[in-house]
């Protein structure tokens, strides 16, 4: 007749975020390496040359780190005040940096002393970069101007004073040596062409602009300021393509993944969000310990580096499959393939009379005991450490089955001090778990009913019972609080819907 049906272990839906391709990709980084800098890290820039060293601008120094080094390979410390925007030239030989002293310094990466100093700005220079032809330096300053400098002669080539507030960010076009873009605290993003006297395009971001970024194709421009990240279509004359509001504090930095398919934004709210550039939806989210001021991705996304206000530089390296192999090392010797196919690949001849052995269904230990109606033994078998600690859902499923059979009380009764303390420790561990709470509360009640008489005989059990009581009381308070919050939210929602309707 029908065979014994094994106890069904219910599967619970996995809570939290869904695992997507993106989460897998972005989770594939090692635990971060923390490097302490002297002050807030305002700029991180990767050298375009292999081995892709990166320059970290923090306080009055610019440190250059190797890809896997914890100590700086080189540092430029000749700043008298805070340095800003240490940026490599596209050949990786020169480094330019602005500073609070209104100076722009140009360094040879292999040297120590500044090659050139460009004077002209009257206030701090927060943004410096090289133009695409490598011979010019762009700069944006708190004196509301942005200027173009000739590198060898250290002369000012042109000056634009269209902005009406601090110029804090900008980016040169990589395709056209004459075009560059600046963002300012006057809420505008302007596109300049060095061949023209005035700006060629102006976009109103709506908030002080903290960072601008050009897509590799340079058809799209991203600007960040306030809580918004906006994407502009340059080819349509600067129309807003999409406006993203996923942060709850000012967005300070932007960065593009190496393939150009993902956009990263870091914010003072300590989150880095990853957007897909096709749908502009957040596909992943990183949390950091402090507000983020700068973020950079190594070429090929090999590492994510974030600089924070507390001066900590967080470096996350990508996991490589080779690394894992090294850790795994010696693999266990497995039986040969032929062991498994033994006797199974025999093909019966045409006239052979087939006698099949009845397949014996494998039953777990607890099922075997349940089949024999040995309820106490069944419960014992699921209270073994490896079951109750690793798979508490199995233990709970068996308890549920015993309850369904009406024999839970019999199974719980008749335990000695050790058995009871195991049972109680299981309860303490799991009774507040929302998946198990309904049945485990019944169990707790039964246990108290059965063992009421022996309370006071064992110090271990008494301690555990007190702990259980404390736990349940705490949980009740907690639930009550949650209900209160829910009530508050309900009133809020109710007022919102009432407003909408008229």
């Amino acid at each position, binding site marked *: *007749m*029908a*065979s*014994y*049906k*094994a*106890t*069904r272990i*219910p599967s619970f839906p996995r809570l939290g975020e*869904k*695992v*997507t*391709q993106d989460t897998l990709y972005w989770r594939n980084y090692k635990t971060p390496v923390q490097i302490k800098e002297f002050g807030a890290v305002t700029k991180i820039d990767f050298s375009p040359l292999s081995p892709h060293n990166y320059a970290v601008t923090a306080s009055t120094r610019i440190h250059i780190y190797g890809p896997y080094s914890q100590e700086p390979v080189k540092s430029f410390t000749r700043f008298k005040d805070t340095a800003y925007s240490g940026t490599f030239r596209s050949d990786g030989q020169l480094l330019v940096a602005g500073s609070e002293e209104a100076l722009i310094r140009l360094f040879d990466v292999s040297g120590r002393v500044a090659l050139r100093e460009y004077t002209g700005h009257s206030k701090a220079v927060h943004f410096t970069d090289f133009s695409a032809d490598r011979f010019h330096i762009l700069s944006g300053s708190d004196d509301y101007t942005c200027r173009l400098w000739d590198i060898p002669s250290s002369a000012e080539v042109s000056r634009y004073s269209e902005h009406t507030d601090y110029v804090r960010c900008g980016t040169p076009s990589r395709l056209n040596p004459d075009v560059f873009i600046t963002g300012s605290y006057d809420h505008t993003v302007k596109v300049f062409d060095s061949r023209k006297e005035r700006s060629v395009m102006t976009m109103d971001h709506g908030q002080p602009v903290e960072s601008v970024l050009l897509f590799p194709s340079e058809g799209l421009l991203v600007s960040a300021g306030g809580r918004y990240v906006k994407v502009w279509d340059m080819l349509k004359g600067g129309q807003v393509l999409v406006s993203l509001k996923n942060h709850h504090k000012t967005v300070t930095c932007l960065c593009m993944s190496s393939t150009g398919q993902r956009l990263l934004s870091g914010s003072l709210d300590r989150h880095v969000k990853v957007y897909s550039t096709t749908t502009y939806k957040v596909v992943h989210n990183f949390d950091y310990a402090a507000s983020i001021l700068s973020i950079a991705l190594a070429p090929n996304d090999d590492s994510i580096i974030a600089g924070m206000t507390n001066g900590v530089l967080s470096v996350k390296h990508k996991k490589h499959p080779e690394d894992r192999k090294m850790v795994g090392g010696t693999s266990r010797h497995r039986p040969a393939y032929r062991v498994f196919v033994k006797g199974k690949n025999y093909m019966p001849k045409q006239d052979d009379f087939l006698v099949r052995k009845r397949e014996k269904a494998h039953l777990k230990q607890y099922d075997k005991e*349940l*089949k024999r109606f040995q309820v106490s033994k069944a419960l014992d078998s699921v209270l073994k450490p490896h079951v109750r600690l690793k798979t508490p859902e199995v233990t709970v499923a068996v308890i549920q*089955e015993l309850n*369904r*059979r*009406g024999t839970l009380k019999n199974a719980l009764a008749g335990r000695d001090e050790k058995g009871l303390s195991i049972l109680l420790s299981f309860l303490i561990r799991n009774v507040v778990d929302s998946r198990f709470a*309904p049945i485990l509360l*019944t169990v707790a009640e039964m246990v108290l009913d059965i063992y009421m008489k022996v309370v006071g005989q064992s110090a271990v059990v008494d301690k555990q019972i007190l702990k259980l009581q404390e736990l349940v009381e705490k949980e009740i308070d907690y639930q009550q609080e949650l209900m209160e919050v829910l009530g508050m939210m309900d009133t809020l929602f109710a007022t919102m819907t009432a407003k909408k309707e008229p």
Partner: protein
Amino acid sequence: MYRWQSGLWRLIDPGPGWIFASLIHLFVQFLLCASGDAVHVYSTSTEERVHVLQGHVDLVTGLRLNSSNHLQVYSCSLDGTVKLWDFTDGILIKTYIVGHKIFSLYVSKFHEGTVFIILPMESKAFQLVALHLPKTTGPEVEARDILSVLRDVSPIPKATSFGRGGEFVASASGLQLSVYFFRKQKTYRFSLKANDKKGARNRFTCVASHPNDDCIATGHEDGKIRLWRNFSQKKEYTYSTEHWHHSAVNALHFTPEGTELLSGGVESVLVLWRYGAGSKKDFVPRLGSAIEHISVSPDGSLYCTSHKDNKIVVMKSSRDISAIIQGLVKGVTDLLIDPRTKALVCNGKPGHLQFFSLRHDKQLYNLDIVQQEYIHEAGLHQCEVTKAAIDAQGSWLATVEERQENPEELDIILKLWAYDESTQSFHLNTSISMAHEGQISAMCFSGDAEATMLVTTGRDGHFKAWLLADHPDAQGEGASWSCDYVGSYHRREPTRCCFSADGSLLAVGFGEVVTVWSPSTWELLVTFSQPPGDIRDLCFGRLSCSKYLLGTTTKNLLCCWNLLTCSLEWSSTVDVILLQPDPLSENMAAFSRASGSTDLFVFKPSEPRPLFSQKAVCSGTVRRAVFAPREEVLEGCDESTQWLSCSRLYFLTEHMELMTFSTKSEEDQIIASSKQLVIDDSVAVTPFYLLLGKHRKSQRETQDSVSSHTAARIQLPQGSPAIRELLHTPAHVLPSASFLCNMFVNSLLISKCREEEMGSEEEEEAEEQESEGEMEASVSAQGPAVQGFQTEPTPQLSKAQERELRKLQKADFSWLSSLLDS
């Protein structure tokens, strides 16, 4: 098989009787089962019902083999008659009229010409009497020759047993066992105390006597079995006690040799006790449902148990199940029709859904919904399937299972099952525990084919819409169902829900208010209310009447709202207990209660006048009803049966009788088909038969095959009716398949030579026309050649030759005629 009621409707009682098998009697080839007022004869090998012995007009209470003729059987009934049947042919031989209600019947080898029956005495007691059967001829005989044997016996057939070929009779009643010896003509009575010290309940439930030893086995309410010996003395009797059953022993039976004692009870485990070996026993576990009766074939090779869930299990003495005869199991869910198999779906075994083919009156399969080991124990709260729904395509099945131990602890699981084409069955897709805080009161699928939606209404005041959501990002998971919308209306409790035929509107009944929602936007479109009285049933009109919404209330009102004008179209005061729309037409069936019986109205929502009405369809109320689509539209219906042309109405009464309506032409068909069921080789399989029968059979077959060759040739022209005949005859009455195969394939073939003959003849004709008189000589010369060609044993043309001929046929010979004309 089918019982005729006055008029149009008939009762289906499928399987081994809708009124559960009350008695079973097993032979090697046949299984007799008393059910209701008929005795069913089943074949043990094919599980088919061979005969129905009909003649009694009240419940059949006893069934015994005639000890002098093993092809005859006695039956007795509450109508006061004892009938003798030839069960192999299904013929009533004789009727003995007793004139009192008969509660049981026994036959003993010791007393030929006498049967023992249990008759009621005055003051609610019963007595066992010997009834001498008069040997007068004639179909109906009065039998009044009664001799009292034992007084104060139990009317239950199981509580009395004849021992040692009829030397004594043992009967138990209450706490007393009485044994009467025919030789000594003396009665011994043994009593047990009502309660032992351990709180045992000692009442007798059943008695069995050892066939050739002085031993009586008795079953008790607390599950004990006592084996009584030495009971021919008043004082020195002894008994030994065996205890395995945890609840009452329902049935006890010794095997014919007396080597084993079979017992069964609520545990649904058949226990085989070895006689004389103490408490050594074997088990046949998990038989599915409580064992009610046990029977063993006279040669001891087959055991048979009848179960509470309308099932008879036949097993070999090696404990292998050889046959299961399963009838429709009573349940609580709605009746559903599976659109794929056209099978009726309702509760089956505990925790299962059964798929029951109405066309074949046979259970197709059971779908395990609960997927838990069923513990057969009285007083245990079991998980029950309370609701089920199938979508219009038959690709999704939704089930609700409930388990309520006490009012606070309610377990509800909503399960959704996807139909798997490759395995041809439903597979669990999503399981949602606690879908609602309270019980789920109604559930329905939307009719929309693209986006299937399920709506459930719960006692917690919400209705929920569930959608199949695909998670393309999620790893290794297919589509699963999730909640799409939770709706409520003024904290009222929703009772009914219903989708319009196209799935664009959802009607939910909240108390006395009907709300109509748009499932695409979840906007409340309109509300209808017809107070007082809560909404009991809701349904949308179909096809041309889809603008109407029908509702019935508890205050005897049937309302029809027009959805276009949002107003009440018409209403009528009928106490409608059930409203059922026909999915294939506009018709609606409404069952209304009227003074102890139920009336049926069939109407179209567009007009309040019924198309058809039938008073007093059945006694009591109708529980469930369903329209099952027919395989083919019924032609030639008169006006009163027009509504039956597309689908057929089945309904389930309070007494768990499944009934349906049929037209006159169908009745004739059924009678015809029941006549076909005649078994020819019903002779018992004896060693002699095995030796001789086989030989004769093969002889006959060769003869048959010789004769049938010619027969097949003759039948060839009208091949298709022959095939139909072949396919429609039940398999068990046909000769072996290997024999039929040849014939069948032959009948399908149109032999090639025939075609070629035709072709060549045509060609001759064509040529004849063209070269009329001129070639007369050659034609006459060809004539005999053609004849010879036909008679040739292998009339084969090579491919090339054929092609040549065809080319010749196609060639234009008009130039020849023009030449002739000129």
